[in-house]
């Protein structure tokens, strides 16, 4: 069985205890998108403000959820501020790949196997990340793939942000 230390890394707990960019923005001008995790009832609302150049001028997050969904949202909010829409999409692809590649190598007990296919449960093909994209703190969420049911917690914020774009 994969250990809890793989899942609840210190940086994740830090973002959970002190979530960055919590709050709301006026809509308009900001865009608003809601995401739900039907499994656990987690809800997330993302407020996204793009400037005239198409960069993320501001982003706020509200809603409630578990440590994984909340910390993932918090880290995402830091990562995408100042990014262009294209850069956000590239980060999203890189993050989904992080959540996917490893899952494909895990069996139901969190042990690595030589699998070919995988997915984050969204039914999409495995995304191909741009190797130049750095995930920074978000890479700490890599351990989530050893707990497949929690992958949807980690990807909730990203899927919601994609809706808002």
């Amino acid at each position, binding site marked *: 069985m994969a*250990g*809890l230390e793989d*899942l609840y890394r210190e940086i994740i707990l830090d973002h959970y205890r002190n979530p960055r960019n919590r709050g709301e923005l006026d809509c308009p001008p900001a865009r608003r998108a809601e995401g739900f995790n039907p*499994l*656990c*009832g987690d809800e997330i609302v993302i407020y996204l403000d793009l400037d005239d150049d198409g960069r993320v001028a501001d982003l706020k997050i509200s809603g*409630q*959820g578990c*440590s*994984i969904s909340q910390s993932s949202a918090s880290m995402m909010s830091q990562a995408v501020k100042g990014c262009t829409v294209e850069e956000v999409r590239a980060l999203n692809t890189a993050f989904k790949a992080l959540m996917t590649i490893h899952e494909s190598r895990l069996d139901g007990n969190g042990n690595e196997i030589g699998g070919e296919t995988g997915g984050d449960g969204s039914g999409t093909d495995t995304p191909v990340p741009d190797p130049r994209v750095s995930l920074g703190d978000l890479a700490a969420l890599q351990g989530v793939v050893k707990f497949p049911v929690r992958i949807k917690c980690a990807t909730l914020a990203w899927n919601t942000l994609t809706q808002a774009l």
Partner: protein
Amino acid sequence: MAALIVDDVLDVTRVRADFPVYDRRREPPLVFLDSAASSHKPRAVLDAMDDYYRTTHANVHRGVYAMAEEATARFEAARAKVARFIGAASSREVLFTKNATESLNLVAHSWGRANLRRGDVVVLTEMEHHANLVPWLLLADQLDLRLRYLGITDDGLLDTSDLETALDGARLVGLTAMSNVLGTLTPVRQVADAAHAAGAVVVVDASQYVPHLVTDVAALGADFLAFTGHKMLGPTGIGVLWGREALLEAMPPFLGGGEMISDVRLDGFTCNELPWKFEAGTPPIAEAIGLGAAVGELERYGMEAVRAHEVALTSYALRTLAGRYGDELVVHGPADPCGRGGVLSFSFRGIHPHDISQVLDQAGVCVRAGHHCAKPLMRRLGVGATARASFYVYNDEADVDALADALDSCSELFCF
């Protein structure tokens, strides 16, 4: 056979020996507290299904050869066992479905479409499982029905303070007999009597009730009663809808196909008689036989003993958790163990239920986390989700202690 019940108490060690899932050595040992989602299966159920497939499998109600007769006999014997178990007047009133959800959808589609008209009132409760909400929401959309809800009190009981007003003009009342979140036992008889006085038909979701309490459909006063096999030691893929014979007779079929007809012409068909009128296609034969075996096991334990065991265990759990964690652990639902089933949904120190469940899993403790398919109730309780521990015949006080101990690890990680 050694006694399963000693001094009126279920001998959990002996019961557990019937369940192969406990045979496997695990470190940490299995502490399974999620039977409200799905129970484990005793050897008798697995053997009955296995033996059927190995020795007797043939399609039912078709073949003339001896093996097909034997398959049909086992299948119908299971129906008779279920009928007796819930106090049905006859096996004709017991329909096999896929699960409780399908049973409730059957009522909505068949009885609902034949009897409900635009503007008619359907009354449900705020503590229903989605299975007894969404079929009616769908139907309300399609037929333009009006939905009304019985609320809950702050201590998690069904609010029956103004039943007459709430049920005035109702054509159908749907309620759970036992909440899958709060464990609340609802006053089914009282609601059914009031509903009948108002001219309404009563549909009871008994998915959490039939596995745990003595069930007598006549005493409950229901018109329809839905439950599922896999929560009562039986396999998945088999559910039951019990209905009053006169109502079932008058209803149009649900699904069309083989088995549910007595004659088919190119310009029409004649329905089969009850209960097969509602069982289109090859039924889940092995699953029905498995359910029959599950009923046999529950009868061997005795439903009074099962209930007494769960009241005692729930009482112990409420005392233990309160003694250990005081106000930091809130158990939702009625405080009186006699007014509830062995389902404890709780909130603990603000820790998200997903995180609780994940940490408990490291100690081998299996609890459910989430909204338990009762999102309107979650909103009423003001929570997004809860952690839920639920008990059955194979659980004991050591399981409760393991839960209480493991909760300490949650605090270590998440309380700051």
